[in-house]
């Protein structure tokens, strides 16, 4: 029990520090360094008096640390400010998109992990044989491809050539149920294709390493049938490093969501982030960064919990 608390406590502390680091970097990059936010807001022809008034109104004359605390406090309380560009409440712009991005990311993960496990376990038992070489080569090639290339390739095949799925996914937020689901499919497949090779390689390497352990050999000598050997002895032990790796792919997943949403004009927070970066809509960029940062940290904690569940040694220590 003490082991759980110690392990969980240290991971929780690290999660909080990570989230703080993300907020500090965001704050520094968007607040302290660029010389004059007032110039950005008021334009080139603002008079010094106007700039002074703006700074006072926005509280920009306060020291940076105080401004940071106020900013974080507002973000936590849900006071997300207004967009510089559309004057809309950031809450209204970002809120409905969070769910759609989350569904996209989770669906792709749920699809990618089993596929990657099957491929990884399959190839690890056939190392050096043609089937392993073929699958390993394909995963290596796909792993090198940028996300947007995969997305465009799928658009070509399924939207342009066959015309069975929509060419872009802005329909994910409106229209009938069927058309909404259809709008999710291509971005989801793209994200899955991006994630599978990476996890497959890790599973393959991990299963290969575990298979050569003495306890596997002794189980085989005891007469444990092959299938039971693989799924009851090897895979559970091989899963442990893989869960760590899946936690590491979180950053990859976030990048994937942001890029793929943009490729497909999918109405999620990633697409809004990119367009807000392009239009320098700082309040929106700040909030989305914090939201994604929070999601990142929470997912990592979940992965840690999975490690805890899979590794009894951590529990008893």
């Amino acid at each position, binding site marked *: 029990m003490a082991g759980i608390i110690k392990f969980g406590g240290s991971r929780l502390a690290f999660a909080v*520090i990570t989230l703080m680091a993300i907020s500090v970097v965001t704050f520094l990059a968007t607040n302290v360094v660029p010389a004059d936010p007032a110039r950005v807001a008021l334009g080139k022809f603002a008079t010094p008096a106007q700039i002074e008034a703006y700074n006072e109104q926005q509280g920009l004359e306060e020291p940076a640390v105080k401004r940071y605390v106020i900013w974080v406090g507002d973000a936590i309380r849900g006071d997300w400010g207004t967009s510089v560009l559309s004057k809309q409440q950031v809450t209204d712009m970002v809120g409905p998109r969070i769910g759609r991005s989350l569904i996209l990311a989770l669906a792709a993960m749920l699809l990618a992990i089993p596929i990657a496990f099957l491929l990884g376990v399959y190839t690890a038992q056939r190392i050096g044989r043609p089937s392993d070489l073929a699958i390993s080569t394909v995963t290596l090639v796909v792993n090198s491809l940028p996300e947007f290339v995969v997305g465009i390739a799928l658009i*070509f095949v399924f939207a*342009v050539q066959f015309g069975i799925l929509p060419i872009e996914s802005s329909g994910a937020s409106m229209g009938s149920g069927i058309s909404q689901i259809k709008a999710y499919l291509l971005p989801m497949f793209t994200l899955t294709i991006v994630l599978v090779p990476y996890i497959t390689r890790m599973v393959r390497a991990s299963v290969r390493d575990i298979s050569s352990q003495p306890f596997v050999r002794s189980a085989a000598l005891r007469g444990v049938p092959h299938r039971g050997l693989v799924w009851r002895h090897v895979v559970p032990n091989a899963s442990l490093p893989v869960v760590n790796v899946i936690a590491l792919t979180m950053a990859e997943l976030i990048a994937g969501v942001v890029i793929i949403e943009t490729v497909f004009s999918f109405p999620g927070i990633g697409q809004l982030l990119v367009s807000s970066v392009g239009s320098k809509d700082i309040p929106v960029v700040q909030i989305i960064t914090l939201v994604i940062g929070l999601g990142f940290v929470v997912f990592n904690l979940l992965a840690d919990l999975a490690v805890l569940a899979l590794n009894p040694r951590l529990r008893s220590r």
Partner: protein
Amino acid sequence: MATFSISSRTTPHHRLHRFAVFLIDSWEARIGGVILLVFVIMTVFGSVLAPYSPIEIAVGLPNEGMSTAHWLGTDVLGRDTFSRILCGARSIIIVPLVATMLAFVLGGIFGIASGYLGGRFDAVGSRLLEILLALPPLLVVLVVIASFGTSSTVIIISVMLVYSPRVARVLRGAALGVATKEYIQAAQARGERRLPILLRELLPNISSVVLVEFAVRLTYAIIFVATLNFLGLGVQPPSPNWGAMLFESRVTIITNPIATIAPTIAISTLAVAIGLLADAASRRFGLDDTSEIVR
């Protein structure tokens, strides 16, 4: 009679030889190497070979298909796609190359110092690295671009900042691995100064790690920067750049598919070639695929 080698260093000749063997040995390295060679030729001679100016508009009709005059057709503004592909090679490599090199200077110095010196410096440094590594790279770069606007300088610096801790971590590990070896201790016992020890004893012995890490890092940097260009946040028009070309031609994907296909294939081929090389190299030099690859 047995011969004993007393030299702990690999001579430059040896390393070159090892590299040559590596290139011939694995099919992945061979394919990757040949593609990369084509690409390097394009980088150097692309603008000479191009039949048209890459930025001149209306050298043909807009959105023309493939023809003998325009091998890969033209884009929305009637610019020659083939010429833009040829000339775009240079812009896709320069920014990532500079950013990666700077990341190696910054992260390399920090990582090697941390690994070699150890102690409190290393303890604090490692904690700092751990936090920096936890920041999602794309998020950081996007925030920087949002406030500073986009330019090659901004992209180079932000990519450098994001990659330095990753380089530092790998090189710290490598330096830590050799810091207690006999030849280092011998040099310390001889009373050599720190810097010569680092440069003449330590660095040559971690050179293969440095090389592989550089190749891998460069791959990611190229894809990363191409992605920024694709998102419309990198090179600004009219410069030819494969990522930016995709960003521009995406809207005509149905009417003029070749304008999208050509840069897609160009980027894919390059990415796969470097991916093959990096993979072959990391296996050749014993960095196996279970070692955590942090993008």
